[in-house]
């Protein structure tokens, strides 16, 4: 479904992604594990196209020089330099880290905004799906998003991405900063999202909460791929155990 080959991303002369190749097959849940500043967010921005937008804006005002190289295929189409809106149309949607929601809008309006590229009927159906996955959002639909708790905002951020109707949902550290119980709940929700026919690529600092739900995983350090394998292989690898499972 998604095939990224030899991705290189520079900010000025600093290398953020170093010859990184990953693949996601239809129907999978794939994890990218890595510590802070390993390149997880840069990878997500490269896959979602946000980096193309950043690059364009920096270029035109003569700011930070961003260089992107490699190849990126989604359903057979090359899209490394395609802008984010075009990728959303084709079904790649990113839910960003630290649950950025529209804080002054209520929950319902957040979800409606997310249907920008979809028809009214489609948006309505997607919102129903979000309410089914996260019943708490339905209860809070009239509340301003800025007043939600961290966990609720995270659900809303995922909900926003879901309304945009992804085939491949990119989730950047969805479990960051949540309590272990909430993490387990959200991990279950991610599995349900996959059961709705949506392929998921998720990044995380710690493997433990998501290990039970993933099919495969990649470990990234300093922008480089250092390990890849199935859930089983990840769980048994001694280095992964030490660094990302805290064992």
């Amino acid at each position: 479904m998604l095939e990224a080959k030899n991705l290189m991303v520079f900010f000025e002369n600093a290398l953020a992604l170093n010859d990184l190749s990953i693949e996601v097959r239809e129907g999978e849940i794939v994890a990218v594990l890595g510590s802070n500043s390993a390149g997880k967010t840069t990878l997500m921005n490269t896959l979602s196209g946000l980096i193309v937008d950043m690059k364009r804006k920096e270029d035109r005002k003569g700011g930070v020089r961003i260089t992107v190289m490699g190849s990126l295929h989604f359903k057979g189409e090359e899209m490394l330099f395609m802008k984010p809106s075009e990728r959303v149309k084709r079904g790649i949607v990113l839910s960003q880290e630290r649950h950025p929601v529209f804080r002054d809008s209520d929950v319902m309006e957040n979800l409606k905004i997310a249907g920008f590229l979809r028809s009214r009927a489609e948006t309505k159906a997607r919102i129903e799906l979000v309410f089914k996955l996260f019943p708490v959002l339905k209860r809070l639909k009239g509340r301003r998003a800025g007043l939600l708790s961290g966990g609720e905002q995270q659900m809303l951020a995922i909900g926003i991405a879901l309304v945009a109707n992804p085939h491949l949902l990119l989730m950047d550290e969805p479990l960051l900063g949540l309590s272990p119980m909430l993490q387990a709940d959200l991990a279950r929700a991610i599995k349900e999202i996959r059961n709705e026919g949506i392929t998921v690529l998720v990044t995380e600092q710690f493997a433990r909460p998501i290990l039970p739900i993933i099919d495969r995983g990649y470990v990234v350090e300093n922008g480089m791929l250092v390990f890849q394998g199935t859930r089983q292989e990840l769980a048994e690898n001694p280095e992964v155990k030490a660094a990302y499972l805290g064992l």
Partner: protein
Amino acid sequence: MSLLIYGLINSIILALYTVGFSLTYGISGLANFAHGALYILSGYTAWSFLNILGLPFWASAPLAVIATALVGFLFYWVLLLRLRGIALAELIVTFAAGVAILELLTWKGFYGIRYSLPLFLRGGVEIGNVAVDYQRLFVVATGILLVILLWLFVHHTKIGLAFRAMAQNERTALSIGIESDWIGSLSLALGSALAAIAAMVVLPLGVMESTIGYEVLIYALAVAIVGGLESTLGMIAGSFIIGYGQILAARYIGAKWMVIVPLAAIVLVLIVRPSGLFGKFKELEERV
């Protein structure tokens, strides 16, 4: 009684001056210092449609609004695109463009009694014992209607919702497929159209000349600074404070104080509370 009525009219005129300026800023963070120039340019455009092309006013006015919106839209793609995100550069460019428009109009001889737009409504009515002409009531009605329509537009249409999204969180908006340059140019077009609508209803009250462009910019700035730039309620409150302040000053101190009130308000508010009386300390809030 007359204080109350004329204060209200004056406040709504100020709100009309400001609404486009503050809308563009609220959505895309773009302070359009050509706002006043676009206001008077739309008046000149309507006058040209009326007197050179011979169109009736009911056709010239909407055409002038559309033309001004188009100017705002092109402004974005031609002048601003490469500077987006550099606030000072945006300010210099829009201000320079505004001055260019105004001086061009002056150079073309755009002043004097022959430049005026016809009233939508003639005649007047007495409210209590105060005589008010229909055109001024029409201004009030337009102001109120515009606020209601804008609210509906922003909350219940796709583009309106995208405006709200871009105003709140650009990156999240981007990641669901909303494009910042389209929204930016549309917000500038809408802001310009609002300036033109204000011009169509307010300009018939007097004679047109290019210097009105500077006045409108100063009024819009005063209202925006007093009310705080990011809230609609602040904008309305700002209009009323300055609007009534002007009328009161004119009545009890002297007519020339009409001009001083907005300028004094700018200075006072910037000293006492730079984020506006109703503005939020946004940066502080975000750090918490």
